[in-house]
């Protein structure tokens, strides 16, 4: 088993791949909530990816990656036996896990992947875990069985009603609260817009809420400041101060704007890669 070798890879949703990667040190150290920075090739960019699972005995970590740009597209074309150029981590502060009582773990789309180890840890220490998985449509739901295995109750919501209950993540939370359940904490990980509206709702309901942010970053060790986010009016670096923050304090609109900074470049990079004219690397 070579360093950073892809040991297994499978498609678990449209454009969503699960990779099992050999990274013994990261595997041994990682705790829920942490991420790694990966480079696919020489000349490749450094991309932050959350850790969905780990098997320290086997020395592996599991990454779940959606194809969104050049690097993730290139990664999706790698096969078992290929290696990643670098995997640095685990980075970021681990999730604060405690016995809150009853918690909702709300995962939107690919956000379910980083939510998995957190849910597992919360469940393990005796929280009553109600997991809420949300997607636009049934085919976009991931890790349903894995999440069910670490939850006391699993609720599925789809925008189009193709599976579970028809509605958004916020509808799901209301549903659970309205049936009289006393919720002590919400963990919400998903697209920024989902985390924004979940946080607005839970603020109104007075339920403390933790979100995990995935802004643009380069080094992941506090050096570049590209991942800065405004939390409670203060600038924080997601890589060293986060990636998890109090959802009620995060400026999500700013986060969404900052995530869009390189959209044109991302298109150029994919076109360049697809045209096969990579020079020099």
């Amino acid at each position, binding site marked *: 088993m070579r360093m950073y070798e892809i040991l297994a890879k499978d498609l678990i949703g449209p454009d969503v791949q699960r990779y099992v990667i050999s990274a013994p040190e990261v595997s041994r150290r990682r705790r829920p909530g942490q991420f790694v920075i990966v480079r696919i090739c020489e000349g490749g960019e450094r991309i932050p990816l959350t850790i969905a699972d780990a098997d320290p005995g086997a020395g592996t970590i599991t990454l779940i990656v959606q194809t969104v740009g050049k690097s993730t597209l290139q990664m999706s074309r790698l096969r078992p036996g290929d290696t990643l150029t670098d995997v640095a981590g685990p980075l970021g502060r681990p999730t604060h896990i405690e016995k809150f009582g009853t918690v909702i773990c709300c995962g939107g789309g690919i956000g379910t992947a980083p939510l998995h180890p957190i849910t597992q840890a919360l469940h393990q220490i005796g929280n009553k875990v109600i997991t809420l998985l949300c997607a636009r449509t049934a085919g976009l739901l991931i890790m349903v069985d894995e999440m069910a295995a670490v939850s006391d109750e699993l609720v599925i919501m789809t925008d189009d009603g193709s599976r579970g209950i028809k509605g958004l993540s916020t509808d799901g939370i209301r549903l659970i609260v309205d049936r009289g359940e006393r919720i002590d904490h919400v963990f919400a990980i998903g697209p920024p817009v989902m985390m924004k509206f979940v946080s607005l709702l839970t603020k109104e309901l007075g339920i403390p809420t933790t979100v995990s942010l995935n802004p643009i970053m380069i080094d992941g060790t506090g050096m570049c400041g590209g991942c800065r986010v405004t939390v409670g009016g203060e600038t924080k670096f997601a890589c060293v101060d986060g990636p998890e923050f109090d959802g009620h304090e995060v400026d999500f609109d700013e986060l969404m*704007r900052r995530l869009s900074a390189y959209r044109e470049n*991302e298109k150029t*990079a994919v076109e360049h890669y697809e045209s096969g004219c990579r020079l020099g690397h």
Partner: protein
Amino acid sequence: MDAKERLAIPPQPMPEQEPRERIHNQREVPLGYTPEAAMREASRCVRCKRPFCTEGCPVGIDIPGFLDAVERGDFAEGIRIIKKRNVLPAVCGRVCPQEVQCQLACTVGKFQHDPTKSVGIGKIERFLADWERENGVVEIPRKAAPTGRRIAVVGSGPAGLTVAGDMILLGHSVTVFEALHKPGGVLVYGIPEFRLPKAIVQREADYLKSLGVEFRMSTVVGRTYPMEEVLEDFDAVFVGSGAGLPKFMGVPGENLLGVFSANEYLTRANLMKAYEFPASDTPIYKGRKVITVGGGNVAMDCARTALRMGAERSLIVYRRSEAELPARIEEVHHAREEGVEFHLLQAPLELMGDDRGWVRGMRIEKMGLGEPDSSGRRRPVPIQGSDFVEEVDSVLVAIGNSPNPLIHSSFPQIEVNRWGGIVANEATGQTSVKGVFAGGDIVLGAATVILAMGQGRIAAQAMHAYLLTGRWDDLEQAVSAQGGTQ
């Protein structure tokens, strides 16, 4: 030649790429000496009885010694003399602030009341390092017999590389841990290609590898590898993790799109080679009118990089005056030649954005100079009602860095000062934890490559004494008992 004849020789200029040409490429600006020019420049040294230049060098290079060798055309001897004290001559010859160190102390410059007329020590140092490399005659110094001791170096910047180089020659086994994917620290992510070609840094690291130093890239001590375990696995540790946390101004609008820390901008350009995008994968935002805030070397690097990324105008906004610019004279000169506009005695008040969140303007206040502050420099004082708005589409914040918190936050037993810098004994580099030494910007705050190297050298000597004697509480005495300098 007598001293009078030597003093009559004019300084030998080093040819440079033309400003108009060089702002369109990443190649090095000064082109280097020919052997003849180097020999002639070396012959300007008047051979003072007391070598003030060596006293002005943080690592104590025998400068008259190597100048003498160069004058005789014995370049191999010249580089040998430098390498006794300096493991990174190709780097130092390029980025050391010689004008405030060896060349400030040089008698030739003093005699002519003009430090710019001092012997070009740095230029000759660079010549020797390049000569050695280009002629493929890199000598591997003799290593001491293996001691069986293992040391860890955290961070592969100038301080860490110096410790690694010294300790391997003293017979210890050395492993360097680097968080990023390439060795060199600030030499690869910060200092631009046109000032320090990355191939040179890589060769310096390869040289250390050839001596037997092991490099472990993408390994974040404090995360991948906790300090406690590093201490169990190694007999001593040197922490040179650098000043890695960018400071921001704290003005409204700083998180607008198009606003970057110097670290981010330079890392994209240098480490990630964004100037080759899309052939390399990392993009960089190409502002048309770029304002860099700050007046140090890093600010000059940003302003000059912006020109090379296609900016039509590149401005420096600095709150003090020309005299207080912390950047090297040469960097300011190069920036001016390339068309960087200096807006001195000005300070940003706020950044304004458009409806999509991109920066479009900077409100700037003019400053006057008041009484000297604690740094001895005259304090900038805002001039009421002087503010105006400058249009801009990219802002680079180059006002310094704080020490990287990763080691301390995961290893709180190591003592830090109120800025978060690791507290280390000046004479030995010892920290509050037995067996752990520290140096470079994690101790100094943002300083220079050569000061970091000087601290690395001091720490290496003390570490060596510690490994041989086991003494810690009176390590300083143990070091001097060994003769202090190697």
